[in-house]
């Protein structure tokens, strides 16, 4: 902070605009609180009751939560949700980064091509769900047609528990890789080109260039991508519901599908709310882990690369 200006003028300026930070923060906070206070309190409250269609809404305390922790479908849903999240988010990020590195070249036509990659992200989940369900169907689908040609046997994706889960991971990855791609692309463009020039003078390898120069600038976009994709993937619903309904059996059921089942098929609102809050707890845990992991390594890299970020 420069000390060139006379303190009194700066202080006077600060005094007059003391309201400014509040004007910045309050609108968003007030709107958010006003909109969410009732739903949050209600849904937390109802999760402690037995509220449902035609049932007395008696207070049952933590019984709903306890019941889920004893229910094997809950643990199955939890396992599936974690598997889908870890694999989908992992592959999305990796693939997104690779694609961004490929497409940042200013080769003719690349800009137009990269636009086409955004398409999956823009399609409605219904469109994607129905389309891919059809694609994976061994009687009608092109994908199954191809795998049958390649392996000689009829591969039935959506009726085999491991393959059905794989199918969902494939589709989710396909849908959201453009998200990681876009964020990474934005991040890549913040890298000052001088650093690359300096690196080529020093004859640094491509990998070194990536690790030392590019990666620090990708920290922020990648953190955002991982964070938001994790939060959204744990809540995955539309895709699973449309493609398999949680089947075969319960092999692809996720926590949100379970909540839907309790909320809208059995109409036990209390229990559905309890599952939803368990989802929130899970996401909170994951996010805290991610934030602390990224936070720590981010700070370490900033210190070690010195000129990395202009602050």
């Amino acid at each position, binding site marked *: 902070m420069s000390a060139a200006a006379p303190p009194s003028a700066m202080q006077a300026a600060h005094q007059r605009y003391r309201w400014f930070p509040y004007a910045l923060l309050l609108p968003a906070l007030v709107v958010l609180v006003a909109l969410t206070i009732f739903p949050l309190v209600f849904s937390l409250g109802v999760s402690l009751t037995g509220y449902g269609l*035609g049932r007395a809404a008696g207070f049952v305390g933590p019984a709903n939560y306890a019941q889920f922790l004893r229910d094997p479908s809950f643990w199955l849903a939890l396992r599936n949700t974690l598997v889908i999240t870890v694999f989908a988010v992992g592959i999305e990020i990796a693939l997104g980064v690779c694609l961004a590195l490929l497409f940042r070249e200013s080769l003719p036509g690349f800009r137009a091509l990269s636009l086409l990659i955004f398409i999956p992200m823009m399609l409605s989940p219904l469109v994607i769900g129905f389309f891919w369900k059809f694609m994976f169907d*061994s009687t009608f689908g092109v994908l199954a047609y191809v795998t049958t040609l390649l392996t000689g046997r009829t591969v039935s994706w*959506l009726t085999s528990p491991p393959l059905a889960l794989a199918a969902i991971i494939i589709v989710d990855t396909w849908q959201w890789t453009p998200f990681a791609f876009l964020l990474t692309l934005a991040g890549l463009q913040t890298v000052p080109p001088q650093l690359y020039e300096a690196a080529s003078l020093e004859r640094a390898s491509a990998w070194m260039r990536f690790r030392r120069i590019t990666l620090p600038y990708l920290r922020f976009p990648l953190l955002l991508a991982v964070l938001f994709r994790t939060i959204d993937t744990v809540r995955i619903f539309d895709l699973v519901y449309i493609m398999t*309904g949680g*089947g075969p059996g319960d092999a692809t059921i996720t926590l949100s599908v379970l909540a839907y089942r309790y909320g809208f098929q*059995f*109409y036990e*609102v209390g229990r559905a709310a309890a599952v939803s809050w368990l989802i929130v707890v899970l996401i909170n845990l994951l996010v805290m882990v991610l934030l602390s992991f990224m936070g720590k390594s981010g700070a370490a890299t900033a210190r070690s690369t010195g000129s990395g970020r202009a602050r």
Partner: protein
Amino acid sequence: MRTRKAFFALALGIAVVVAAGCGRRAQQPQAHLRILALNWPQAPVEQRLADEIFTPRTGIKVTLEMNTYDNVEVKMKQVINSRSSDYDIVHYDSQWLGQFVAANGLERLDTPDYLDSPDAEISFDDFLPEYAVVMGKYPTDASEVFAGRFDRYRDTPIYGLPWATGCQIMFYRADLLKQAGFVDEQGNAKPPETWPEFVSIAKALTKRGVRYGAWTHAGRQGDYITQDFFPIMWANGGDLWDSKAWRAQGVINSPQNVEALQFYCDWNLKHHIVPAESANWGNEEVFNACAQDQAAMGQFWATFGAALEDHDRSKVVGKMAYAVVPGFRDGRTGKIRRAAMYGCQATAITAFSKHKQAAWAYIQWLMSRETQKAILDDPTSAFVSAREDLLEYTKSRNPRNRAALESGFLAHDFWNNPEYSKLLDIVQRELNLAFIGQKTPKRALDDAARDLQQVLDASPFRPKGA
């Protein structure tokens, strides 16, 4: 100063922009009836006739909101739960009756305001009893009704009237059966009379890479696989539960049922006469398989047959034939025991409607002989009426109706109690697992029985003494 103004302007701009998005609900005109309906083919016909006849006659505007099956269930439950007057009339599926009545969502009709009024234009007796009693009265035991014992329910409260009826029937490719030599004395294709016959015909018709001999809708979602398997289970003499004792244990996992399930799963796991993918199939996929000449025979809803005769959608126009479903031959008597899956909609007035008398006027009009005949006359409606005085007329509309109505006395239905959704989900899961070979039939049914019994035992709706 300029900046403060700028901020004010910004704030004002936001407010204006937000207010612009405001859209209050238009004031409702007098007596505007809203009906929650399934998007089956009779719905557009109903809307058209209501606009052309009912509205001019009474001045009451009618709007049918056509929804998918899932959405109707969800919306109705939401309406009941919040006691809202969103819908005045609902066309509901028979198995939801228990839940809706238990939650006090439907208006009782056997009162002097409605059916018992001296001015009532329709009567409960106008309708075929095997449909009317199951779909409209609660509580009833479907197996008793279908065995013809209606008098037990003479005083049972009435909540709905049968709207569109139907059963699953056997669809088969007459041309393929003829080609393969399965014909009767006149040289016409002869559909299977028993399920084992069905399997052997399907085996003969299955050509790898070309077409499967049969289809199933063994999907996990909704009630697909249960609809497919239950008729086989019932034809084999088994049952779902003991409705008097509220007992599933020992009933659904009886030896006959295990045998029936093994028989059904073998279609996929042993004989490969059905696509493996059908374990994820519902109505849509079966329709496509049939229409695209990918499978030759199977159970299906009579209503769908109409679309198979449409050149725009189907490659098998004119090739399909219909019959009552096959059964199992009883070893002792030599008679064939058949069972068909029941699938009907009824109509009721919602308990929170603000226009109940108008709704009743509509229902009387809809259920009248003239209106039902008009709906039958429209070939796109694929409608099967439950009116007794239109029985022969309905049968004569097309071959599917004949098969469907002849299946009436063979029909069985699901549990019709408030725990329906949970019971269904359990059985769906277990049957699906057995069908793909993840569990043996015995294991699947035993697990189902255990979980079903848990739900039944814990249910707050369990009758005393059960």
